[in-house]
């Protein structure tokens, strides 16, 4: 007879090939003897296979991301001659200046020693230089726009809204009054951009909301507030992208969450082309 709590861990290790040879042999001997264990193991094999298949499907998003990165590298390679050309134009520009300096020298030189300075550069080279400068300016402008509107700090700012908190009354310190007070604290800290402290305060809000015996609607309100503000905090603190995305996905995956729409909009902004241009 086996106790299931103990066996799931062992079954999982056995199926993943993670048991030492001796332990695996013991487990197999147990499988021979115990029919229930045999049936359980077969069922868990199906479950773990199914979960592994879902994990592999989830990798599809990652593959798409790597493909985009690879294409970017390719584009950079393709752009290399253009960039080199621009560098050449920059050098040409210096040559222009040197020609100007030379003319100045000639002008200052004693009479009789004047020489004719003739530039060999065709006109189109100058035009290209002008075009390159314009491209550079446009690039800087786009990047500036992206930084102003799509930086983590900016996205956190525009995603955050102070809810209508009302007055937190004094008097008897019930769990509910402590909850309301801590909730107001958390939002004040958010407004002051004291994100680490706000995260702690929201954690306490979650704990208090579970203990305060609230009705379902109220519980949901606090839970949605905490999960959404956690996303904003991670974003503002420039946490690793994966962590922000995981917190965001949690909100998006919950159709009851009040902030699902906002989370989807934020995800679109995070995945947008402009984010790549942020300094």
């Amino acid at each position, binding site marked *: 007879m086996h106790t299931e709590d103990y066996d799931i861990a062992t079954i999982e290790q056995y199926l993943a090939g993670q048991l030492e040879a001796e332990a695996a042999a013991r487990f197999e001997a147990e499988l021979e003897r115990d029919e229930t264990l045999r049936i359980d193991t077969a069922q868990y094999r*199906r479950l773990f296979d199914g979960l592994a298949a879902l994990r592999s499907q989830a990798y599809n998003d990652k593959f798409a991301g790597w493909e985009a990165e690879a294409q970017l590298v390719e584009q950079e390679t393709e752009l290399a001659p253009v960039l080199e050309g621009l560098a050449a134009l920059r050098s040409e520009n210096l040559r222009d200046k040197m020609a100007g300096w030379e003319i100045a020298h000639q002008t200052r030189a004693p009479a009789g020693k004047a020489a004719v300075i003739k530039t060999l550069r065709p006109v189109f080279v100058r035009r290209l230089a002008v075009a390159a400068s314009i491209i550079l300016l446009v690039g800087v402008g786009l990047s500036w726009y992206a930084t102003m509107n799509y930086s983590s700090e900016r996205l956190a700012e525009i995603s955050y809204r102070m809810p209508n908190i009302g007055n937190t009354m004094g008097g008897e310190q019930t769990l509910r009054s402590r909850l309301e007070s801590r909730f107001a604290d958390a939002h004040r800290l958010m407004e002051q951009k004291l994100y680490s402290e706000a995260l702690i305060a929201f954690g306490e809000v979650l704990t208090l909301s579970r203990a305060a015996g609230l009705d379902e609607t109220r519980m949901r309100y606090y839970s949605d507030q905490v999960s959404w503000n956690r996303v904003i905090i991670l974003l503002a603190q420039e946490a690793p992208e994966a962590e922000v995305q995981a917190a965001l996905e949690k909100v998006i995956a919950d159709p009851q969450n009040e902030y699902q729409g906002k989370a989807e909009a934020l995800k679109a902004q995070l995945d947008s082309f402009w984010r790549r241009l942020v300094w």
Partner: protein
Amino acid sequence: MSNYKEDESQLNLLRNGGEAVWQQFYDQHRGSFRAFFMQYGRMSPEEASGLLQDAMVVFHYNATTGKLSAPLQSNLKTYLIGIGKVLLRRKGGSTTGWDDQIPDEPVAPIADRIADQEAAAKMARALLDRIGEPCRSLLEMVYIKEFVMEAVAENLGLPSEGAARKRKFDCLQKMKELLR
């Protein structure tokens, strides 16, 4: 004695490695895979990239579940292209005229495995949809998103890693009961 020692070492790394190892593998084979299907399958670069990603999903499942294991019958590049070939056929694409480029022997079981993988994923998704919260989120975090237990505990507001692990076993047991 295996002819594909290096590939077997790489497979072992992939089976136990994280995302970085997989990205390296993706980058390593991207060029040859796309070139192959652009040349022989007459695919556009975008179509070839899409096929590569589909093939990688199948490859990932086979590698991480031990369904592809030593001793290998071909190198990993051939195997990956073989998966692409099977997937292309399944989509109704023709491989006539270049079948000999990638012999069928090493990749013959792939078609069956792809069907098994799809059925397994469908079954697990259906059970996750039925199991309810917080089990669904927890199992997704552990088995799909590959969160460490500490992160699972933090995300679910559980007091410790141990509590998260205990909850995981409870949820697995519940999922198994749904399977019955």
